[in-house]
């Protein structure tokens, strides 16, 4: 019997790949989170996780660092994107590219660069939390600018004119036109920055003098020693991701913050 070629069948390898390397690993995490070393069902990790003040305070610290990082990044990226998107100069994309280019340098080398700068001005080892937030803002800024710029670029100029004609001043126009219409960009920028700043421990390790523990590092400390506790924290993160996805409506390819469609 000759197999008929079907276009649909092309997705089978990818579906199998996703099943084995995405879905099954997630199930393994859930299994490990609720079992003990003897593979018996146990809520020990769960209870320990939520009753240990040091664990909880690490998570609170990490959330605060992520919130501050995201807020600062948004406060810098929003005006940058606004100015770029509304500017009338010809080579606008070149200017945008200047903001995106550092993103393509190896991530760890970039963190190392800011580490050297902090070392030079004498802050390394002195202000661990400040350095961590600074490094994260530095590293994640392009991820915020790109989706913001993309959505603001799409706002029809006649809307601004209409607002002015109808007597809206600059402030009114900004809050009634720019902000609501750039909301998708804001949300996708926030997801691109908030999650890494809770989990990417490269920055906190290299700039925080190993004194700053974020949730990602927290998981890493259980690597090899206690997979069950590590899985419990990972599951906690997974739930945060899941909930935030419901709020932000998921990831859209048009706002690909990695710059695929530049």
């Amino acid at each position, binding site marked *: 019997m000759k197999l008929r070629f079907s276009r649909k069948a092309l997705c089978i390898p990818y579906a199998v790949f996703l099943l084995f390397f995405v879905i099954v690993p997630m199930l393994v995490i859930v299994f490990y989170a609720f079992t003990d070393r003897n593979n018996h069902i146990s809520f020990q990790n769960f209870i320990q996780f939520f009753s240990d003040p040091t664990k909880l305070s690490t998570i609170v610290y990490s959330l605060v660092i992520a919130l501050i990082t995201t807020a600062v990044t948004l406060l810098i990226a929003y005006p940058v994107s606004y100015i770029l998107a509304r500017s009338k100069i010809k080579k606008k994309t070149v200017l945008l590219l200047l903001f995106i280019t550092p993103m393509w340098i190896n991530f760890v080398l970039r963190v190392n660069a800011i580490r050297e700068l902090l070392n030079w001005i004498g802050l390394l080892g002195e202000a661990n939390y400040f350095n961590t937030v600074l490094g994260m803002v530095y590293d994640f800024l392009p991820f915020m600018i790109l989706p913001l710029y993309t959505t603001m670029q799409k706002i029809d100029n006649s809307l601004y004119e209409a607002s002015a004609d109808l007597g809206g001043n600059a402030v009114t126009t900004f809050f009634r036109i720019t902000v609501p219409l750039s909301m998708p960009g804001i949300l996708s920028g926030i997801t691109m920055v908030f999650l890494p700043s809770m989990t990417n421990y490269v920055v906190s390790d*290299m700039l925080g003098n190993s004194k700053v523990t974020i949730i990602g590092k927290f998981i890493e400390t259980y690597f090899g020693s206690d997979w069950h506790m590590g899985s419990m924290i990972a599951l906690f993160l997974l739930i945060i991701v899941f909930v935030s996805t419901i709020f932000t409506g998921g990831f859209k390819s048009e706002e*690909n913050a990695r710059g*695929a469609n530049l």
Partner: protein
Amino acid sequence: MNKKAIALKCVKAAFIGLVLLFLYAPILLLAVYSFNSTDTIGTWGDFSFTHYAKLFGDSVILGMIGNTLLLALLAALLSTILGTAGALGIYYSKKRTKTTLNAVSQIPVINAEIVTALSLTLLLCVVIGLPRSYFTLLIGHMVICTPFVVLSVTPKLKQMDNSLYEAALDLGASPAKALFKVVLPQIIPGIISGFMLAVTLSLDDYIVTSYTKPATFNTISTYVYNATMRGNAHTAEVLSSFWALTTIIFIIILAVVLTANLTGNKKKEKKK
């Protein structure tokens, strides 16, 4: 233009300039010192290429750069094939399959990298019991890269003219031939940008790499991280060769971005 408008323009330009300074200051600092004989930033020596000589004379560093590039190309190639086929299959599937696969495909994109890394390591190395090897590393990188290839190809499929495929079939082409000769050429820009994206994702990765790699294998990310975290006197010399490495990578990227932008503009002009 009144004074207020001019003032506003200056404030805007100053703000843009400041943010750019913030983004480039660390890299430029390293670039300047990479051409200096000193090993500590702040003390000024003579103009020299010693850091570059050290970089190109260190077989360990060169080996790890080679590892990084080879892994990125291999992971990107495999991800591009798997992801392009996946995107095509998903596009032609029924609605339910489409929604399910697209949703699952999003998981590695939105998930925290550490969760992806931990879950994969748990499955491959703890549950199945495989040793950390090039295979586990490659799988790790493909999990990060492939969904982005799908995300790059899918918009091109949606823009495609479906009647061309039907026309090819009517004219006697086999479905496979029509796919290769008619569909593929239309989505090639998406495939290329997916490939490039996969390369950059793989080059950039630290967390998944550190979880899935064999102990003796290093990429730029893991090597630089380990060197900085050790922090003894021996690494001061290694660290200064990273200044040269950062500068070289920065120059290459700048060159690629500029040429891509210039040739892109030329194409647009031709279209006019």
